[in-house]
Structures are given as C-alpha cells and as structure tokens.
C-alpha cells in the first residue's frame, strides 16, 4: 500500500469568514480523514513519538485503535496518561514535540498526531455515554492551587489513584489560561468545561473564588487536613515595557484584553463587561498570546490589526500554524520594529474633551539584527534616526508575564528564583515538605502541555510521598 507522503490537511473555516466570528477555526477531521491519517502511522517498535510527548501518551497504541475504528478504545489509551485530550489535541505544539520525532517525518510529513488526538477526544465527548468512575478512596487528601492545565492534570492523576482532591481557583470559573487566555476560536470553552466535568465525575472538588495566599494560606490548607499541596498558580503578572504612555486609556496588557473577551465574554453582542474595539489596533509581541490578541481584536471588529515585533519573521516565537492563520486573516506584521513611546490624545483647548487621555498612536523605531546573544538568537539593534509614528486606537502589550507573588509572599520557607518562579526539584517538590509546584508558576510563561507534564510529574511524586508516609 502506497503511503500518503503528506499529512491530511485540517478542514478549516475560510479566512474571510472566520475573521468575523468567534467559532472554532479548525473544524476537525472527519471519520474518513481520521482513518486515512491513522493508516499513515508505521506503528514503530521504538515509538520515538512517545518520548516527544511531555505526558507520554502511547501514541502508536491509540492510533492502532483508530485504525480498527475502535474510537472509544483509542480514547481509553490516551486517557491513561492525559487528563485533557480534547484540549491538547488543539493547543499542543505537536510540531516541536511528538510529531517532530515521528519516523514518517524523516522522509515525508509526520503523522498528524495532534489532529488524531483531537478527533478521538471529540468522538468520545460526542458519543460516550458512561460517566467516569471514581475509584475507591485511599484516605488521603490533596489540595491543588489553581485550576489551570497543571492543576487539572495533577488533580486528574491523583483522583484516578483514589485521592480526595480539592482544587482551589481564584477566578469564578475553572480552567485557568484555558478559559481566560486562549480564545474561543482556538479552544471552545465548552470543551474545557467538559474536561472539568469529567474530573468532577472522578470525585475532584472544585472550589472557585478562593485565592490561596489571601482567602486561605498554604499553611491553613495543611491545618485543614490536606497532606500535600500542589501549586499551579500560573504566571499571572503581566509585563509592561516601561516606556512613556503605557497608562493611556486603551492600552491593555494581553491578559486584560483576552480576559475581558474570553472569560468575561466581551465578544458577545451586548456584553456586561466592556472592551475597546474597532479602529486600529496594535499588538506588541510575537508569541502565541500576541497572535491570540491580534486575532481577537480582528474578530471584535477592528478595521486594521497589526503586530509590532522587534525581531524578524524567523524569530517569531509563536507556533507557525498560528502565524499562518493570522496572516491569512489579514493581520499586518510590522517586523523589526520596536515601540519607544505610546502617544495619547490631548486637546489643549478643551480639558473636558472626551478623547483626552485615550491612546492615539505609537512611536516606533526600526531595528536590525545584530550579533547573536548568549542563547544564539540574533539581538535586535535600533537603527538610529529611524523613528516614525503609527496610528492606534487600542494597544495590546503581549510581551510576557511573570509568576504571581501572592503565594510566595504568604508561604514561609518557599524558595523562589530571581524571576519569582518557585524553585522545585525534578519531582516538582519545593523547599517546603509536602508542597509541590509546576507549570508557569515555576517556569514563567510556557506552554499548556509543559504545564500538564509538570502536573503529572508532581502527581506521581505526591503519590509516592503519601504512600510511604
């Protein structure tokens, strides 16, 4: 049988259509496409792809089940090691993980592992009838701080082993960055809600509106009888550029802009939470969050959205697929440019002019790539005298986040590094006995799947710690 050298393309909404709605961009494989793609898997004995997966899914194992058209069986294989398959199938950077190790990829395009994972998870969510069964309790209680990817994964793994798990979430909804950060068109919120429901069926309790470090402290969790705590509180603190004008009205952190649109549903027609939209929008930064913010602004009705990034296309840290989607939708890329000042409106004749204090533009300087820095990336250097002005009605700053200090500040003996990240060993154990941590709270802003991997490692370590206690 001749193998198709190319991955089956993902059916997607047309760019001109999707740029004006918040529906999911990628529509998912059909049964036929899934079977055809599964047939491309060579079922290698050494399974290189599994080593590329932060949560070690038995990838050939589940794909063989797909080949047999046993989709529920495929789901059960994934479910053994991953708590959030419908999420990972959508937002994992497979091209740098499992798919980068695929044997097919040596000569041809790798197997579309992520697309198959998504198909299997969606099939399960649409067709499975039985509820997840909570295992017999083992008598131990574990607290999880933060209902984001690392916390949900850690909770799922422990619940499957019989632990009584309680998740404490600061916001009013579980999901962390999956609900406040990643937009609906990339990850529908119903999918996150479904994954959380599955955890609840396993017996996991989710307490929203509890800010650990404020409402309760880590020490109080131990007093309440929890024997171990996993901290997955994320990288909540937005970075700003510290240039003049960042306080003008209409200048948002990406966190705020995306939270208003996603979590607070400002994208709906008559939202209760306002957001500035329309006109010209400039997003500063080149990561996945910048792409999400730009594409959200476009869907909210902006007439022009541009990305200002200080390096060139080759250095953009966002996933290639996200950059391509953004380009197709008409996002303008202003590369090798760096903001030096945000400009605000001021009517000198009328201090009561309603436009006063709102952002109206940005002064940028052109950059060129100089010598490589210690990481080997060529350092952007400003070109003297190349400054010029861009018009803007809204500016979104998406240049990264730092770990949230609330827990560090209220937990004695919890060691952090100079960036504020919680210091852990290879098992996710912090400097405090029984306190584990993972995800962005440890690493600073990274990916959903690496956070899930950390949650998984910590769950195994917590299991070992409490089993031997």
């Amino acid at each position, binding site marked *: 049988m001749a193998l198709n050298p190319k991955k089956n393309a993902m059916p997607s909404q047309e760019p001109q259509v999707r740029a004006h709605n918040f529906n999911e961009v990628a529509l998912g494989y059909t049964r036929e496409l899934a079977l055809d793609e599964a047939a491309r898997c060579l079922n290698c004995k050494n399974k290189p792809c599994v080593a590329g997966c932060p949560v070690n899914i038995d990838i050939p194992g589940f794909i063989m089940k797909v080949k047999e058209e046993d989709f529920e069986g495929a789901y059960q294989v994934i479910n053994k090691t991953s708590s959030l398959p419908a999420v990972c199938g959508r937002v994992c950077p497979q091209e740098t993980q499992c798919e980068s190790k695929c044997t097919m990829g040596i000569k041809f395009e790798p197997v579309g592992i992520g697309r198959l994972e998504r198909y299997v998870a969606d099939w399960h969510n649409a067709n499975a009838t039985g509820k997840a069964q909570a295992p017999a309790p083992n008598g131990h209680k574990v607290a999880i701080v933060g209902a984001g990817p690392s916390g949900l994964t850690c909770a799922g793994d422990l619940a499957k082993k019989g632990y009584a798990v309680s998740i404490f979430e600061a916001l009013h909804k579980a999901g962390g960055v999956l609900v406040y950060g990643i937009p609906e068109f990339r990850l529908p919120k119903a999918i996150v809600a479904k994954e959380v429901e599955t955890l609840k069926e396993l017996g996991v309790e989710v307490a929203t509106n509890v800010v650990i470090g404020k*409402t309760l402290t880590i020490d109080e969790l131990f007093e309440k009888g929890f024997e171990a705590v996993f901290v997955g509180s994320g990288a909540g603190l937005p970075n700003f550029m510290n240039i003049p004008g960042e306080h003008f009205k209409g200048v948002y952190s990406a966190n705020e802009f995306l939270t208003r649109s996603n979590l607070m549903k400002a994208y709906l027609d008559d939202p209760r939470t306002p957001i500035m939209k329309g006109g010209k929008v400039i997003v500063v930064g080149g990561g996945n969050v910048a792409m999400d913010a730009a594409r959200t602004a476009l869907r909210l009705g902006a007439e022009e959205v541009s990305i200002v990034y200080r390096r060139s296309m080759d250095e953009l840290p966002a996933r290639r697929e996200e950059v391509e989607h953004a380009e197709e939708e008409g996002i303008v890329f202003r590369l090798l440019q760096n903001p030096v000042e945000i400009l605000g409106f001021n009517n000198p004749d009328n201090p009561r002019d309603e436009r006063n204090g709102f952002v109206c533009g940005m002064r940028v300087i052109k950059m060129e790539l100089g010598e490589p820095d210690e990481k080997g990336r060529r350092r952007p250097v400003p070109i003297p005298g190349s400054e010029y002005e861009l018009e803007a009605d809204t500016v979104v700053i998406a240049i990264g986040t730092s770990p949230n200090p609330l827990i560090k500040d209220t937990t004695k003996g919890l060691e952090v590094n100079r960036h504020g990240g919680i210091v852990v060993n290879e098992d996710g154990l912090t400097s405090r006995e029984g306190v584990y941590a993972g995800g962005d709270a440890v690493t600073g802003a990274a990916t959903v799947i690496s956070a899930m991997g950390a949650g998984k490692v910590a769950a195994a370590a917590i299991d070992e710690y409490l089993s031997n206690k």
Partner: protein
Amino acid sequence: MYKIVRKKELNPTVTQMEILAPLVANKALPGQFIILRVDEEGERIPLTVAGTDPKEGTVKIIFQIVGETTLRLNHKQEGEEIADFVGPLGRPTETEGIKKVCIVGGGVGCAIALPVAEEFHRLGAEVTSIIGFRSIDLLILEDEFKACSDRLIVMSDDGSYGRHGNVTVPLKEMLEAGEKFDLVLAIGPGVMMKFTVLTCKPFGVPCRVSMNPIMIDGTGMCGGCRLTLVRDGKRITKFACVDGPEFDGYEVDFDEAMSRGRMYFPYERHAYDEACNLFKQG
C-alpha cells in the same frame, strides 16, 4: 452562590448588604476589598469591605448605585444569592505606630473609611473623622462614626447639614491651628483625595489615600488597575489590587488615575440606561 443575609437602604442611592461568605469574613481586615459578580453573565466589580462578622460568617458591603452592575445588585433582595464573592483582596490598612489619626471620608467612600476608623479606635488611637456629603439626603453612617471618633465633623457641599463646605476646610483649619496627626487617611472620590493631599502638603503631615480603579481579577493578573507613583522624580507603575489599595498620597498621579477611571464612561451610561429600562419593564 453567596446569600444576602441582610439588606438595608442607607440613602436613596446607597445600599448596605451583608453577604454570607465565611472564608472571607474570617480573614478580611480594614482596608481590604472583595470582588463580586451579581449573576452568571455579570461583570466583576471591586467593593471595599465595610465590616465583618466572623461568627456569623458575613461580610458587609456598602455600594452606591452608579452603573448597571450596582443597579442589578440593588435589585437583589434579602435571602437571594449572588453568583460570586471573592476576597479578601489587597493589603490591609497599616496601623502600626499611629497614635493620632485623621480620617477623611467623602460620599460613599465613608463606607470604606468607617471600618478603618473603627480599627484605629479599637487600637487606642485618637481618631478625628471628617466626613463629607453633597447634601443631607446623601448622609450615611453618622452614628457609626460618632461611636468610634474622638471628634467628628460632618460637612455638606450645599450647607444642608453640618458645616457648609468640603472636607478640606476643617482639615486645613486644624493643621493651621497646629494639630499634629501621625496620619491623614483620605477615602473618597479622586478629586477629593487629590485636594486632601494638597491641603496636607504645606504641613508635611503623612497622607495616605485609598484608590479604587477599574479592575477585573484583583490578583495582579490583568494589570488594568495600574497606577503611577512618582517617587524621587521617577514614575513607578503599581497595581492597586496587590500593591494597594492604599498608597502614599504624595506619590499618586491623581490626574492619570482619574482619567483612567473614565475609560468606559460612554459604555457605562449606555449599559445603565438599558438596565434601568429593563427593570422598569420588569
């Protein structure tokens, strides 16, 4: 869900509620705030804690009906529930070493000023309270302030009650007469706090203010509540939710903070009118 245990109208535009939220009641200290959502689609709004009853597990909030969300909140009755109530957020008022304090409250800001005044009183400090309102119809909490203040001065902008004028008038008189406060703490509208600071400045008396910017999460995540402090000529960005809400009044850039507070004015007017119509029909 969080039950409204008691509800009381303090004046036609200001309502007091006691909400069942034991974890928050157990922890909240004067100067801290909470964030609530009235219902499932609602926006998140911050309100400063006006008192707690840890035994009963209730938290007192006092709010002015200024926009859509507070209008919806005011439509909730005793025994009904609101969707979300999280806290306590922010840092509590710093009370250490303060023996003689002047609390300056403006309008509904008095609701926030009261628990702070009570706390200083409880700690044995000498408390002078100056509370100001536009008019007698809007007066709130006079008896409560009387109970915790060694001296209380009530001001009204239109002269309909107490002394005629704004809160800075008696403050200036006292400072000119040589009163030495360890701290002047101003809580109220931005412009009132700005002028309280300006009044204090020539006398070099320490002056703190309680900022109430627009915010979403209240945990430092969104950065929407950022404000600028000017310290030694340098502009420093702070987040009111985690670094505040109280700041050194001499350092706050009030004009910027007030401008940022008006970011959604046109939207809010529209939303308020829509909600008013909705309730009229209902």
